[in-house]
């Protein structure tokens, strides 16, 4: 952890500040949220690293998508993700956002979350231990250093495809597009 190296702060303050002040939105997406309260309270203290939970997406930096994502939850996740301010990072937590996990043949959950919102990193496990959250945070620091944690930039660039996928999964979306969408014919109509 290079939080106390002053020269790095003077050279790139935005990068260092984004690393050491990750405010996670406390949106309990699925069953994996049960591993988060021990992380943010006295057992494994995450506030040492600058990670605290906040109550509103406007103040948040980091979105931890814990557990399986049903179709109804995907709607809420997309709305929350679009309200966060850039730069923002998402981490898929558990094996269900990766490839469906335990619910791989369910009629109501989505199987690959990165078809709908961009994900910067995954944590495998069902559920991952709280120590895995810390490993994820340190990996995220490395990615931010190398400027590879650019999920929000990919969202802006490929917004057409993401929005088309979201409409395929959710039907009609009742919020306007976040970035201007070009009119092109959709493939794969239901």
């Amino acid at each position: 952890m290079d939080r106390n190296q002053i020269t790095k702060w003077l050279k790139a303050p935005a990068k260092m500040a984004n690393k050491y002040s990750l405010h996670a939105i406390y949106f309990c997406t699925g069953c994996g949220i049960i591993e988060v309260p021990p992380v943010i309270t006295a057992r494994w203290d995450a506030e040492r690293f600058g990670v605290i939970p906040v109550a509103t997406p406007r103040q948040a930096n980091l979105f931890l998508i814990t557990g399986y994502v049903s179709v109804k939850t995907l709607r809420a996740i997309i709305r929350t993700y679009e309200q966060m301010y850039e730069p923002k990072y998402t981490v898929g937590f558990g094996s269900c956002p990766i490839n469906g996990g335990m619910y791989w043949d369910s009629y109501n959950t989505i199987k690959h979350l990165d078809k709908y919102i961009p994900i910067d990193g995954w944590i495998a496990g069902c559920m991952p231990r709280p120590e895995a959250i810390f490993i994820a945070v340190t990996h995220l620091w490395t990615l931010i250093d190398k400027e590879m944690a650019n999920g929000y930039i990919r969202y802006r660039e490929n917004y057409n495809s993401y929005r088309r996928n979201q409409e395929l999964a959710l039907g009609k979306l009742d919020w306007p597009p976040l970035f201007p969408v070009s009119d092109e014919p959709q493939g794969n109509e239901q």
Partner: protein
Amino acid sequence: MNKSLTEKLESTFKDIRIAISEDSRIALTAESDNVLAVLRFLKDAGFNHLALLSAVDWIEDDCFELCFILTSYMQNDDEVTGRQSLHIILKAKIPRKEPQFKTATGIFSNAEPYEREIHELFGIKFEGHKRLIPLLLEREYEIPPFRKDFDTRKYVQEVFDKIPSVENKDK
């Protein structure tokens, strides 16, 4: 207590079959026309808590079976304490083609969300229900998902796997 209840039931309703297991659980099987009358009778006899309303899909027998589980809330009366650990499960079969049933919300008003759930997941219509809109699901399915002839793997392959990935590199 059990004896008097079973005698009353047998005397009031015909076509009712009673099975008592050892730990004070009574299983009643009734015809689908009688079910509401039996529910009203049991509620008046003190079983005022509808704990669960669920359905089973017997695809080989070509019928659905609705199951009502009733218990009684604890009362301070001494002579009814014997009833506290008594569960009654009431089963009724309905045909599988265009299934429908009368609603139990007139007797137990907390049957409303259970009936909504059964309607969206099994496709059983409940006449007289005021608000039969979906409770949990968001999409429309041709075959209701909890029926045994709904192929989940095929549905996932057709709907979710066909959505294209946005970036070609895998993580």
